[in-house]
């Protein structure tokens, strides 16, 4: 009896507590007070939790395809079948003009970027609610959640892009130096997705309507973007209105980066970049205003 109890006692090394604490004057100080500043961005706090950002991204990647028979093949299968259906219906049956490119490549290049955007928005707008337990029980900068969910679908994006490039080789189309433009396009798309999510996420915490609206919104947004068709089929008189959709410029730019052809419209690109910046900055302000009450309402 006594022996078994002794076995429970811990040596100091076992629990890692060997040293005495340091001088209190050198300790990190945290001040908590009601905050009504309009703009308060805690970059230092966010930096301290960069490890958590990394771990959450890794967790999303590990968990996503775990206990699935095909594993990461799903990252390929989804866009591949989407492109296949688009090619059959819009390419062969409806014979939508593509400015000369094979339809599969024309649609594929857009689907790769669009799938990233849609996934990033879907995951991060729902991310806060999905992590409700964490938010209720543990403190960390809440911004880590939308950041992680905007970054993690980039891996699927990379896989899909690789498949896209393989498809191009199959069709005998070789990308040129324009391909480097894919990088800034992806970055602006990620900023836009983050900006949208920084607005939708906190609203979703308060009103779960967002969860129901989102699939619908994403679908409409997809048809309002030049994915299955070229923006050249939009009548010139309303083209400016059409280009107010920030994804128009981004998809055109990405398609240009991958396939070459007509360069994207300068006005559309300006709209995309401006929208991304405006949504991101206003989203950050909105998010930090709302995050202090997350634990109370989620």
């Amino acid at each position, binding site marked *: 009896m006594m022996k078994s109890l002794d076995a429970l006692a811990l040596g100091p090394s076992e629990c890692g507590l060997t040293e005495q604490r340091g001088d209190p004057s050198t300790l990190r100080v945290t001040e908590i007070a009601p905050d009504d500043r309009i703009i308060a961005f805690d970059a230092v706090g966010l930096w301290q*939790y960069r490890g958590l950002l990394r771990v959450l991204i890794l967790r999303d990647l590990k968990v996503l395809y775990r206990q699935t028979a095909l594993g990461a093949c799903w990252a390929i299968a989804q866009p591949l079948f989407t492109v296949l259906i688009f090619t059959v219906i819009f390419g062969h049956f409806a014979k939508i003009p593509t400015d000369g490119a094979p339809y599969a490549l024309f649609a594929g290049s857009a689907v790769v970027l669009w799938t990233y955007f849609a996934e990033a928005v879907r995951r991060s707008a729902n991310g806060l609610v999905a992590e409700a337990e964490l938010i209720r029980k543990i403190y960390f900068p809440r911004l880590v959640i939308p950041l992680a969910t905007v970054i993690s679908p980039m891996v699927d994006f990379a896989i899909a892009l690789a498949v896209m490039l393989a498809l191009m080789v199959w069709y005998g189309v070789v990308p040129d130096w324009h391909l480097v433009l894919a990088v800034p396009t992806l970055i602006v798309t990620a900023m836009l997705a983050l900006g949208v999510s920084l607005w939708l996420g906190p609203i979703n915490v*308060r009103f779960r*309507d967002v969860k129901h609206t989102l699939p619908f919104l994403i679908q409409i947004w997809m048809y309002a973007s030049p994915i299955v068709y070229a923006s050249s089929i939009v009548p010139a008189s309303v083209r400016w209105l059409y280009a107010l959709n920030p994804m128009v410029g981004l998809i055109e730019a990405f398609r240009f980066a991958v396939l070459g052809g007509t360069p994207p419209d300068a006005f559309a690109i300006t709209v995309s970049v401006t929208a991304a910046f405006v949504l991101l900055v206003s989203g950050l302000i909105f998010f930090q205003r709302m995050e202090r009450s997350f634990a109370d309402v989620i």
Partner: protein
Amino acid sequence: MSMAISVQDIGKQYWRAPRAAHQNSLRDALSEGVRGLLSRRSEARPARESFWALRDVSFGIKHGENVGIIGLNGAGKSTLLKLLSRIAAPTTGRIRLEGRVGALLEVGTGFHRELTGRENIFLYGSILGMGRQEIADKFDAIVAFSEIGDFIDTPVKRYSSGMYVRLAFSVAAHLEPDILLLDEVLAVGDYAFQRKCMDFAHRLQASGATILIVSHNMFSVKTMCKRVIYIKNGTVAYDGPVDAGLKIYEQDSYLSHPSWYRPEQSSQDFRITGVEIVDAAGEGKTVFSHGERMRIRMRYAADLPIHDANVSCSFTRADETHCCTFSTLLDAAPVPVITGTGTIELLTPPLRLTADDYRVSISVRRKGFDTIADAKIGARFHVQHPDLDPYIFGIFHEEGHWTFGR
């Protein structure tokens, strides 16, 4: 000397139901907003009902001090802990914390069921604010402390609940905070692991950490803290030495409802109005010897008669372990119709409980519907015995008959 925790006039205001319950969809918020625009008068909108979960709470805790936060359910203890750990923001006041803060409001939130134990150590460690290198350095110690062994590469969804909690606590225990905020988490796992956790907390205490424990568990508060802060209705009702604080708390908790009780389950037409403990001869007392019999007398007031009631009386040890229950249903005691006012008395068999503090709680259920008519926490008593330490002898002790063969 500077304070590890200084809390100045903090308050937390919450908005109660109508708003929270009915305005959770966007449509309601929009229609509310439109109505507000149209009528422009503030009285046209239902007044938002607010309440203060905490109000004007101030205290200071020195470096290395260990303080227990006690209070009845809903008094504001958990709210206080949420404010201190930055999970929720205070409505008023200021909090200043010196040092690395580790807050454990619940063990294991943040674990992902699909991930292995190894992956979860890194995940949970990061969530608690540990760096990657720090987790890697402590990894072996965490695994050893958790006693998980070879299961470390198994997804945690295959773990038993005990293993899950042990692994989670082990990660948390290696956080090495300067200030540790604990909410009831010591009451997890089996008894041996609980003891290990207590040892750990003592060691953390010895190394000079500041610990704040929120607990119903008088036992852990008593062993860990010299000072308690008693929160009552959102304000500090007592702040001082532990014994006097616990006494006030016990007086207040007498005839309060147990934590599992939900008032909507019952109408108010039956009330337990008193519970007292006397010895077999009828003398009131609170300290009993092991082996002594006890009478528990309950007074009631019934506005409507209760037929075939099921009356039960439970003993709960100070560490919230439910030890035993006497029940008229199980003991097949004849129960007359309960009506008007009266008393019900239970004479226990000789008490075989080990030496510790216990609490009596009484519940009366309506048979057939099995709804609760009332449930109350009654008096407390202490069992005395020179040798029967609950750490060694468990919950009860009875003589056995030993035979030695060769």
